[in-house]
């Protein structure tokens, strides 16, 4: 695969776990991977079943489910853990959606949302009655000390067809992920979101959250249990949280999160990447995954080369079905003129660096405001080390979350010795100041090779 549109992987991943009620498609298309359920699995399933929940989001007006997920009990009086994305419809639109649980014996009841953690995709819910058996957390998992390869068992209600157990192996924390996720080598299916993944002695090793899309097999993701215990122990109001308070809380969580992220990006710093006569900044942060792309192999042979590297945070925070945020991506481009005249090459570079024409989600975002100029970094004699840059900045604000913006920033160094370069940064869910600080840093590191 030449170029994965990495930015969208997490989107598909999460979406694939939000159960679509019409699940027959997924069933038919699913590869026939035989899942061998061992004797251990049988015992675990029998043991876990009374502590498992299916969590449904119902459309108030129709009393019909619009999505389903899973959850599990963590106290006798009816506290349960699930994914934030399982309860997000109710959390954001309580007038339109309500929640109910269905336990293994078929009993149903109402749920209240007590607390949530959007960054780790977790929610704490309260059942309408007590007297439950519940799960305990595995101590080794809490300390991230599970050995790689250890057998684990994922439980939940896939595709709304009944509770099931699936066997997999612990494969450590996902590398190059800013938010910690456990990599589970094992199957996972829509509807299992929020369910537990257990050790052989039926302790919680992680919380089901996502699986990889794009044709990958048996690559699933779990939220580490320490975030669940942190959520349980966090002080909270006695009242359930809904509507406006949910938005305020999401804004607060994102605000704190992005502050730490941009501080970290700034501290980690950049190294110069040569791009013809230019030096483009490349982040030293390990949580970026980079993919290179070129037009060199196009037919007919291109008259100018465009080589680019897109570095992407393997991270996209689910807020609502149509709103993901928190991603930072940086695209470095190098253009080489082969046989174009000056006007044509300038047009080629403009075309490859143009931005601002993406449609924004008008319900969630304000219209985009842009500023474009020609800038030169440095003071006095230092200016010789910098190219004149065509710079553009476009920003739109989140309507629901105070002080958060989506920003795209591009700096283009026009032709010099038949070559041009550009750097484009997309910053989602950032404060205006942090985005400006990051962009300024990029300009300070975008130099001419001496």
């Amino acid at each position: 695969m030449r170029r994965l549109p990495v930015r969208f992987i997490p989107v598909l991943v999460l979406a694939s776990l939000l159960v679509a009620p019409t699940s027959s498609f997924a069933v038919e298309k699913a590869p026939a991977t035989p899942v061998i359920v061992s004797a251990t699995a049988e015992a675990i399933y029998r043991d876990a079943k009374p502590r498992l929940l299916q969590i449904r989001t119902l459309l108030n007006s129709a009393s019909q489910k619009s999505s389903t997920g899973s959850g599990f009990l963590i106290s006798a009086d009816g506290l349960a853990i699930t994914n934030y994305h399982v309860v997000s419809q109710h959390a954001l639109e309580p007038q339109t959606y309500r929640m109910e649980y269905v336990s293994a014996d078929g009993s149903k009841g109402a749920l209240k949302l007590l607390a949530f953690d959007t960054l780790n995709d977790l929610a704490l819910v309260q059942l309408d009655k007590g007297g439950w058996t519940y799960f305990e957390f595995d101590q080794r998992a809490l300390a991230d000390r599970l050995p790689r390869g250890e057998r684990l068992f994922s439980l939940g209600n896939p595709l709304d067809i009944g509770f099931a157990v699936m066997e997999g192996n612990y494969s450590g924390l996902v590398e190059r992920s800013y938010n910690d996720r456990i990599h589970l080598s094992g199957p996972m299916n829509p509807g299992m979101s929020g369910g537990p993944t257990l050790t052989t002695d039926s302790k919680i090793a992680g919380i089901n959250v996502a699986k990889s899309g794009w044709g990958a097999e048996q690559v699933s993701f779990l939220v580490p249990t320490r975030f669940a215990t942190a959520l349980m122990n966090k002080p909270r109001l006695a009242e359930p949280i809904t509507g406006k308070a949910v938005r305020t809380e999401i804004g607060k969580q994102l605000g704190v999160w992005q502050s730490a992220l941009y501080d970290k990006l700034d501290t980690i710093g950049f190294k110069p990447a040569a791009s013809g006569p230019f030096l483009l900044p490349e982040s030293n942060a390990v949580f970026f995954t980079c993919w290179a792309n070129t037009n060199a192999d196009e037919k007919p042979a291109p008259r100018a080369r465009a080589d680019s590297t897109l570095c992407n945070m393997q991270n996209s925070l689910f807020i609502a079905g149509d709103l993901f945020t928190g991603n930072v991506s940086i695209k470095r481009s190098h253009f080489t003129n082969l046989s174009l005249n000056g006007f044509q090459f300038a047009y080629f570079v403009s075309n490859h660096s143009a931005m601002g024409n993406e449609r924004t989600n008008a319900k969630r975002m304000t219209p985009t405001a842009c500023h474009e100029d020609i800038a030169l970094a440095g003071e006095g004699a230092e200016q010789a080390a910098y190219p004149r840059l065509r710079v553009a900045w476009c920003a739109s604000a989140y309507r629901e979350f105070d002080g958060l913006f989506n920003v795209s920033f591009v700096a283009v160094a026009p032709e010099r010795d038949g070559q041009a370069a550009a750097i484009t940064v997309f910053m989602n869910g950032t404060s205006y100041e942090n985005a400006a600080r990051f962009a300024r840093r990029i300009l300070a590191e975008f130099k001419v090779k001496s």
Partner: protein
Amino acid sequence: MSEPLTAAIWIEVTSKAGALTMRQRITGDTFSVGRGYQNDLIVDDPAVSPAHIRFSRDETGAWWIDDLASDNGTVDMSNDTRVSRLQLTENAALRIGHTLLTVRSSAFVVPATTRMTGGGVQTATATATPSRVVYYAFTAMLLVGATSALSIWLKQTGESKLAIYVFGVIMLPMIALGWALAWALVTRIVAARGQFFRHLLIVGVALLAMSLIGALVKYADYTFALVNASTVESAVTWLAIGALLAAHLRVVVPNRVRLALVVVGVLIVAAISMDYVLKEERQRLQPPQIVTSLLPSFLPTKPPVSTTRLFEAINALKPDLEEERKKDPPQQQGFGGDVD
């Protein structure tokens, strides 16, 4: 001023729309004009009285007109005043109702004969086509085609394909031809002649002016930062469209230029207001395109700003966005379909 007319005269009758409808020679000593059948010349104009005006010679042989107490009067077009009696001079123009009467003597000099090709077999038309207009219109179309080809070539970053050029070169002149043809039809309905080539020349000049000004504005913005390209460009476009329409209307109704200008003015104001009202909607459907205007490095650019100045300008956008946040999101069912 010309000398008083004494010889036999001709009257040319021109309709409200500017079409010459009739010529009448006056041989006697008196001659009456009006809507009624007792007149020597009947004018079918509802604003003309049944007995409107009388032409007569005095004892010296000079021609006079008398307004026969008509309802709407007789206007001397030389000074735009109502007259009841007036001595006629060569080429005097009078307006009765909506109709124009022009007085010619037999000494009136007609233009030189148009040379016919093909040995003069065809019958000469009374209204010979002014060949210079044809020539200019043809040149304008060639230039429009050449401009299209040039702009395609400057943006040609892939393989050159003849088809792209042929299509690009023919496209705009074809649209111009269609446009001119439509105007010629309108002119033919209102007046006697279609004036196709005059309309073609007008649209050709307008297209050339628009592309030239567009290029100048882009360059001025890039090099001197003198103008805000998008604002100036939209203003210039509206002005050019206004001028284009006014020029066409001038050909269609040459006697109503002021009215035509008012109509064009109202249309343009309406269009600009509509443009303003729909701005937000348009912005939602099609956010601004950025960094589309790079030019070759050998062209000078405006002086660069420092990063401090740049980020001052960037920070100045923030209050607008904060303000925008407080507003309700636009309706999801706008025209142009759903958003997500």
